[in-house]
């Protein structure tokens, strides 16, 4: 409903009774009258109303008659009250609404022929519905079109001043980038301060604009809504799994829209806890890679002259033959495979089956290894679950949210709206622990800006502080008293002063944060790349488990520990068992009965329980010459990992490198065989979002050129090697997944998970906990600055750099981002170049000031390899989960 939900988990609103069109209706006190009417299924026209924000009341369309009042009232801004008698229909109301439409029409230009909104325009609908003809006194505005923004054009001649764009920006996005301004005699929507619009470019204003006042620059004038074919699919840029409509005209993608639109204006404000239906800049404007000119269109096979286009049948035959040859000469152990977590569940499933049964190797891994695996392994080990614990509704309705090392707005923009709603609508206390001044930190009640890399220490401080302040939940700890005492003993090693010194946060703040977290009835922990992609991520995640356990936030409804995934289907990659330690489920690969079950299901013997290398070891083995053939599906280790890791050397030792990718990546240039793969918009299948919701991908386009679906290629290779994978279409794979993982699809709802730490706490917890807390942080060399490879909201991995729209919005500036103070201190306020030196080498590059970066830190977007800042970082490997850490380093910076 438009107004803020009056019934929250904490307060229950009184029930009132009113009479609408002769029907008796009950409603909650304090809601908008418009919502009560629309909840009856009656549609009263309104142009400025949308359920996601507070009613604005500018269009004057939603008129109803209240008994006892002479003139009609605007139902959206009127609050429902006991005993109201309302009439919503009638000649007089129709005439009054018609008058309101006429008011808007009389100053609207005759733009329909060139307007992109024509055919999807509320003003058109209203004028048509109310049969407006022969308007007198029409006058034309002549306002120049504001084309200064990179993404959106503002044609204020067409604006009806409904304020939907401004309201959604303010109430939902909490960015507040737009405002009304009286200019040239007309009220216009302009970017704050009448500058060029510079915001997150989520495009929600575009989606809710009921006329064509805000238009999309990337598809300007190239379409009319009635020409487009709409395909509902799921965005795979990040783990939020937003539903989106890919709108295509013939063979090109024209635009991307989402369920958020002025057309879906009727709803319950409370429903926004499950998402408001919008997209972020990547989903909405980053679609150009789908029909990019750089896409591979045919298979390439290397001969003396280089990579040459080859027919599919020949390429598959050559590859299968060479794989067979390597398998027979060196054994299955000499083959390994890596797959990207942007593939569908079905493809990931076929991949691991192909690797394990056809090639007979357990050397396989996915890009979930880059970080998400830390969380999964910790949760698997400690809680017996394999994913996040809460739904987005829990997140919104939490009373306290602890965000640790998660720059949610930049990595998972739509999920961050849930936190923003918790802040704005439900008044939650939000503690943001980060080494960057993130967008959430600005909105949070308790921003805690720690020194780079000390997020984990801060968590330990929280645990210590919770123990010290006796914030222990007696019920939760009663089940394992010996574990509690072990934790207490281990925490002796931590002193709050030392934590304060290391993180740069005063002790009182730590204690207050612990108190807020422990005392709130519903507390949620969100951890992100600042924990799981930083050294010791596994242990830090376990510390978060400790914190949640002692404060009793593990098993209470609405409480839990959650993470965010960077790529669309990292959770699916884990669930499908694309890791040497997991079988689909995921169940541990070491479990004999699980291996038995799958070997029966697949009719093949699985590799040894002990065998199997993960990403880091696979590349090390390539370097050592132990692995002779590497199968990369959408992975680009050369572009991802620092030079010091020796990927180039590893690849050069290979006898066969197969790359399967939509684009010719850096790694693919070393390949012996390159297979053209499809993008998500051509695929049919499912992806699992970070919440565990399995959602559908539907093909919006036919595969470009000769490119093929990933699982088609794998089945082709298997056939070439004399094995048959019994799949003819996606449904076959899904049927098999249903058989081996009953209930996995679960009708698109997240499967409920129950965390149970009992076994973990009773068995061996006491021994490991001491080691974890004793393990003090070793300060690195005396280099003063922390370099962070950060993610930008406008990009996701390397894929988004192929989307021309996103590159227009956020090109590679090639500059190091530093705080203003640091820039000034180094005398770089007007720009300039610096030399950045780390243990791995040094690099010269430009500098740009960035308000998000804290003093003592510098940052560079991880999406760009030019200049090769990533090579300054040394790769550290987690001893338990084998996750490579390469997102931060200590550097010195000198001006040159």
């Amino acid at each position: 409903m438009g107004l803020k939900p009056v019934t929250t988990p904490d307060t229950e609103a009184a029930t009132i009774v009113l009479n609408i069109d002769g029907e008796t209706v009950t409603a909650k006190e304090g809601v908008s009258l418009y919502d009560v009417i629309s909840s009856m299924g009656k549609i009263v026209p309104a142009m400025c109303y949308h359920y996601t924000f507070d009613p604005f009341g500018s269009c004057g369309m939603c008129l109803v008659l209240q008994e006892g009042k002479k003139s009609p009232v605007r139902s959206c801004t009127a609050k429902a009250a006991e005993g109201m008698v309302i009439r919503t229909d009638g000649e007089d109301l129709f005439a009054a609404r018609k008058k309101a439409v006429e008011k808007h029409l009389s100053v609207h230009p005759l733009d329909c022929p060139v307007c992109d909104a024509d055919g999807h325009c509320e003003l058109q609908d209203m004028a048509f519905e109310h049969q407006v003809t022969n308007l007198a006194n029409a006058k034309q505005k002549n306002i120049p079109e504001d084309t200064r923004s990179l993404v959106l054009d503002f044609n204020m001649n067409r604006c009806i001043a409904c304020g939907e764009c401004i309201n959604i920006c303010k109430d939902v996005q909490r960015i507040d980038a737009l405002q009304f301004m009286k200019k040239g005699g007309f009220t216009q929507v302009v970017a704050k301060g009448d500058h060029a619009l510079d915001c997150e470019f989520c495009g929600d204003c575009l989606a809710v604009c009921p006329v064509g006042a805000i238009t999309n620059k990337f598809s300007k004038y190239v379409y009319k809504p009635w020409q487009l074919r709409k395909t509902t699919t799921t965005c795979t840029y990040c783990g939020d799994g937003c539903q989106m409509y890919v709108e295509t005209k013939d063979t090109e993608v024209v635009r991307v829209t989402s369920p958020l639109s002025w057309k879906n204006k009727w709803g319950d404000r409370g429903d926004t806890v499950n998402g408001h239906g919008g997209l972020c800049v990547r989903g909405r404007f980053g679609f150009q890679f789908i029909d990019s000119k750089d896409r591979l269109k045919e298979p390439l096979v290397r001969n003396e002259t280089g990579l040459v286009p080859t027919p599919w049948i020949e390429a598959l035959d050559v590859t299968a033959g060479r794989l067979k040859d390597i398998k027979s000469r060196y054994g299955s152990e000499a083959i390994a495979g890596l797959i990207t977590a942007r593939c569908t569940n079905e493809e990931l499933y076929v991949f691991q089956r192909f690797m394990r049964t056809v090639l007979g190797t357990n050397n396989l891994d996915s890009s979930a290894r880059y970080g998400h695996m830390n969380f999964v392994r910790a949760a698997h080990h400690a809680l017996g679950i394999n994913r996040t614990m809460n739904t987005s509704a829990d997140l919104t309705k939490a009373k306290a949210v602890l965000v640790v090392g998660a720059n949610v707005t930049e990595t998972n923009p739509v999920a961050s709206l849930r936190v923003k709603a918790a802040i704005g609508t439900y008044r939650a206390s939000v503690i943001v622990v980060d080494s960057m001044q993130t967008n959430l930190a600005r909105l949070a009640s308790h921003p805690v800006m720690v020194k780079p890399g000390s997020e984990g220490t801060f968590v330990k401080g929280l645990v210590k502080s919770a123990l010290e302040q006796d914030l222990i939940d007696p019920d939760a700890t009663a089940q394992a008293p010996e574990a509690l005492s072990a934790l207490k003993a281990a925490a002796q090693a931590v002193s709050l002063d030392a934590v304060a010194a290391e993180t740069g946060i005063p002790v009182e703040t730590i204690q207050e944060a612990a108190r807020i977290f422990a005392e709130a009835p519903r507390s949620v922990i969100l951890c992100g790349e600042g924990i799981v992609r930083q050294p010791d991520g596994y242990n830090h995640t376990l510390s978060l488990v400790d914190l949640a356990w002692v404060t009793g936030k593990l098993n209470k409804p609405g409480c839990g520990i959650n993470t965010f995934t960077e790529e669309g289907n990292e959770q699916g990659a884990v669930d499908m068992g694309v890791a040497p330690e997991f079988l689909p489920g995921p169940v541990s690969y070491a479990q004999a009965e699980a291996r038995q079950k799958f070997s029966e299901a697949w009719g093949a013997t699985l590799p040894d329980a002990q065998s199997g290398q993960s990403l880091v070891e696979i590349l090390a083995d390539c370097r050592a010459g132990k692995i002779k053939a590497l199968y990369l599906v959408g992975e680009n280790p050369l572009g991802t990992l620092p030079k010091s890791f020796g990927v180039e050397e590893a690849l050069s030792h290979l006898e066969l490198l197969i790359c399967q990718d939509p684009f010719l990546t850096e790694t693919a240039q070393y390949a012996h065989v390159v297979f053209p793969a499809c993008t998500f918009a051509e695929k049919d299948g499912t992806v699992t979002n970070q919440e565990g919701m399995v959602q559908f991908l539907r093909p919006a386009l036919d595969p470009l050129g000769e490119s093929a679906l990933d699982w088609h290629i794998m089945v082709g290779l298997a056939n070439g090697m004399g094995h048959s994978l019994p799949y003819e279409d996606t449904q076959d794979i899904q049927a098999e997944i249903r058989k081996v993982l009953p209930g996995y699809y679960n009708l698109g709802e997240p499967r409920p998970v129950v965390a149970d730490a009992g076994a973990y706490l009773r068995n061996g917890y006491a021994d490991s906990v001491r080691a974890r807390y004793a393990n003090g942080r070793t300060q690195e060399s005396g280099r003063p600055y922390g370099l962070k490879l950060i993610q930008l909201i406008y990009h996701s991995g390397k894929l988004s750099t192929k989307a021309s729209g996103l590159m227009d919005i956020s090109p590679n500036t090639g500059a190091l981002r530093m705080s203003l103070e640091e820039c000034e201190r180094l005398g770089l306020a007007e720009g300039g170049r610096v030399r950045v030196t780390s243990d791995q080498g040094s690099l010269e590059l430009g500098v740009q000031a960035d308000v998000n970066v804290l003093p003592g830190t510098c940052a560079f977007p991880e999406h760009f390899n030019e200049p090769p800042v990533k090579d300054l970082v040394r790769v550290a490997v987690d001893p338990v989960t084998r996750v490579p850490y390469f997102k931060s380093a200590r550097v010195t910076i000198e001006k040159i």
Partner: protein
Amino acid sequence: MAQLEDQRETIYKVDPAHPETKDLPILRTEELLLNMGPQHPATHGVLKVILDLEGERITKSTVVMGFLHRGVEKLAEYGTYHQFIPHTDRLDYVCAMYNNFAYCRAVEKLMNVTVPERAEYLRTIVAEVQRIIGHLFWLGTQALDIGAMTVFFYTFRDREILLDWFDELCGARLTTSWYRIGGVERDLTASLETKIRDFLAYFPPKIDEYVVFLEKNRIWLARTVGVAVISAEDALGYGLSGPTLRGSGVDYDLRKYESYGAYPKCEFSVPVGKNGDTYDRYWIRIEEMRESIKIIRQCMDQIPKEGPVLADVPSVTLPPKNRVFTNLESMIQQFKLFSQGFDAPPGEIYCGTEAHKGELGFYIVSTGGGKPYRLKIRSPSFIHMGAFDYMAKGYMIADAVTIFGSYDIVMGECDR
């Protein structure tokens, strides 16, 4: 192979009663199955009839239709109501105007649109002109089928005058698309008015001329009188309509009983036959042409001199073009109507119209929105073909053509 041998044996079986024929093959007498059409000059397009013949007599006939099936009813579900008008031109392609009229009437009934008075008169005039064209076309081809070629030239000469009149009226001779939901596309001009008045004077003597050729012609009489007789009861039972039904003596004409258009304001009689044979059906058509002339003449006299020809219902009818250029609301109306169509109320309607062949009905199911959910066309040709087996039984093979010819079938409407 064995079967073939058997057959051969039966054919050449010796009759034991006549041993003298031992050396002669015995001719087998059995029914002959004859495929007539679809490529046959007299089947009015692509009709195929499988005739079971006993000698030259028809014992059973099976009509095979669908060679001209274009899925018109399905096409209707994919376009707006307005966009379907040109598709109706291609139903009964010799009489497009009447199809337009029947369809527009159905949609107007669905949308509850009242047509301006001048438009009603124009619609009636043009519909009657179309009826004359239809009957002329029928007369020419029917006579041609029977062997009287001359009549064909005379009827087509006069039909040509009217087609040229159509060309001037709406821009096309056959595929007219002149009717609009809520009226007509274009008003009569002075020249058109003169031309139709001239035609009214010119045409009645011509009808007598055709009659001279046929009325006493003994071949014509032999081929039509008493051929394909159908009783009034059977005709109703088979759902026949139009001249085919009236030929059997049933006085049923929607122009009288549903009284749409300007018909209620005109005086005219409905000719009704007695015998229900092919000749009566011919006679009725000749008389209807005379009645049509009367109706047109009355309409031309009564028609209001001024007035709109298209209803002004902003949610259904197109705005005048000059308003589109200058008024936003008309521009919006134009864009909404062409890109999305008007929003029809949910419901079902059937509307029958007396076309020159019989009752042409449109049955529309709407679930709201700009496109019909289902559109069914009750085309007289199709219904009449259902009675063919019954009516052709016992007649000569040569009569088959004249029998379905007497329904005035057009396959475009039959197969749709």
